[in-house]
């Protein structure tokens, strides 16, 4: 069932989302893997897997560990590179009737620019999400996302070659996320998404070994929701561009919480593994919430906390 609740429509720069519910990169494949479970055109948008300049094999197995109310991952940006994306994957997803956003990663400014430039040419990709916050690769984006100057530089460079909607995804592993957010906003980002995973670690006490091949990895799931809400709230108070809230969203109530603290849209990540139909259920749950509280438009509750 297609959701046609006009109250849910939101905008991120030039991108119109039929509702605020998007999917988080790395947790939704390229979207079509979910066609058995939901109607993709019921969503506001999908953010596909991280895409880098060239092919990446990612980190060795094991790449995940379950934790309390969450999980750690150490995938490490495995993907076949931007050319493969443009030539092969793009054709498979270009007709999905929702906003298709590509998560862009790299180890150098040049790599980010190269990928962004190539994606800029794809008609049916209305925006990219610049991942400057991946904790899972040695020369990965996190260095860019934890230093305001480097963050500003990479955004500035990409902004020059990318003229559609540019979302920048921030790391929570910083002393002041507001500082990074302002730096990025200052260089022309259209939107900020947050949070990427928290840097964490898990240990097998019986085997006396780390559970991830990379020892540390990225924590996601409900465990991180309080941190994510705090980040969105802090940044929403200080920045003007729309924010996409991410982190531990498991149901419509969680999504509403992010909107209340200032998010324009939200992305659902780890929850997709537990209930692959959750995104569509969240869309309906938000409509029900608006009904119950007699709210005319989702924007009426945005940032009221």
């Amino acid at each position, binding site marked *: 069932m297609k959701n046609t609740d006009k109250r849910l429509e939101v905008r991120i720069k030039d991108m119109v989302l039929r509702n605020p519910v998007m999917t988080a990169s790395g947790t939704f494949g390229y979207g079509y*893997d979910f066609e058995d479970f939901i109607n993709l055109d019921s969503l506001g948008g999908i953010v596909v897997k991280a895409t880098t300049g060239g092919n990446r094999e990612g980190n060795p197995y094991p790449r995940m*560990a379950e934790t309390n109310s969450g999980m750690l991952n150490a995938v490490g940006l495995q993907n076949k590179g931007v050319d493969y994306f443009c030539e092969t994957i793009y054709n498979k997803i270009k007709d999905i009737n929702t906003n298709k956003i590509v998560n862009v990663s790299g180890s150098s400014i040049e790599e980010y620019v190269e990928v962004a430039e190539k994606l800029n040419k794809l008609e049916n990709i209305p925006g990219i999400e610049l991942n400057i916050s991946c904790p899972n690769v040695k020369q990965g984006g996190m260095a860019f996302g934890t230093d305001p100057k480097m963050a500003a530089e990479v955004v500035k460079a990409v902004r020059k070659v990318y003229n559609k909607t540019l979302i920048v995804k921030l790391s929570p592993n910083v002393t002041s996320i507001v500082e990074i957010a302002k730096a990025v906003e200052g260089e022309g980002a259209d939107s900020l998404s947050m949070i990427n995973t928290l840097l964490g670690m898990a240990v097998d006490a019986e085997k006396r070994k780390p559970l991830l091949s990379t020892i540390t990895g990225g924590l996601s799931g409900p465990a991180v929701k309080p941190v994510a809400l705090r980040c969105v709230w802090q940044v929403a108070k200080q920045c003007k561009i729309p924010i996409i809230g991410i982190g531990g969203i498991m149901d419509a109530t969680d999504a509403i919480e992010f909107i209340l603290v200032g998010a324009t849209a939200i992305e659902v990540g780890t929850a997709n593994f537990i209930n692959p139909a959750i995104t569509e259920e969240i869309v309906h749950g938000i409509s029900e919430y608006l009904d119950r509280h007699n709210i005319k438009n989702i924007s009426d509750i945005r940032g009221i906390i």
Partner: protein
Amino acid sequence: MKYCKDFIVVENQTITSNLFILKLQYPETLPEIKAGQFVEILVEGNKDVFLRRPISIHDVDYKKNQISLLVQIVGKGTDKLSNIKEGDSLNLIFPLGNGFTIIGKKVLLVGGGCGAAPLLYLTRVLKEKNIKSDILVGCRDINHLFSKKEYESLSNLHIATEDGSCGIKGLVTTHKILEEEFDAIYCCGPTPMMKAISKIAKDKNIPCYVSLEHTMACGFGVCLCCVVETNKGNERTCTTGPIFLSSDLKDF
């Protein structure tokens, strides 16, 4: 087509103190399921269990629209699952994975411990296709032997137990049946056993299919957590596998 639906528990049969078989009723018509495919179970009621748990499909009864799962208690999720009662419902994503490639005219199945879970349904499929099969099952002792009658009715059963309480005494790798000629071997069990068997298959120059139990976050291909190194690079165990031709795997 994959489904995310509730099944009803028809039976929870205790095999040993740490092994049980769940018989689950599907309320609709079961879709086609391949031997070697698995389900992802939502385990409720334990606050420390966050992700679903992958479990192979042990057997399928299309007439009754039932499937069964053979589960070994190894931790909090499987422990919680062992307490499930008749009439309770269980949410599954299914069927997942590639399943076994069915080839040849005479094949050997080798199963170790509860790893043998997917082999029962495989013997059924093989029988339907008129492929002659032998099945060699290894386990600790006679008490850990399960589904013996079913195996016997569908295949030629050979047994190896650690204590010799049934079949030969020793590891499956020492069983004479391995000396016979087969068109293919299908092997499920602990990794060292699968490696040993695939080496035997290699020497015989026949294909050996193994089932990998890598830890999984999603089970349907979207998280990339379950990868295994193959000759073509990292592949997802949950979609490209869990059944692999052992010669395609780097570590085998």
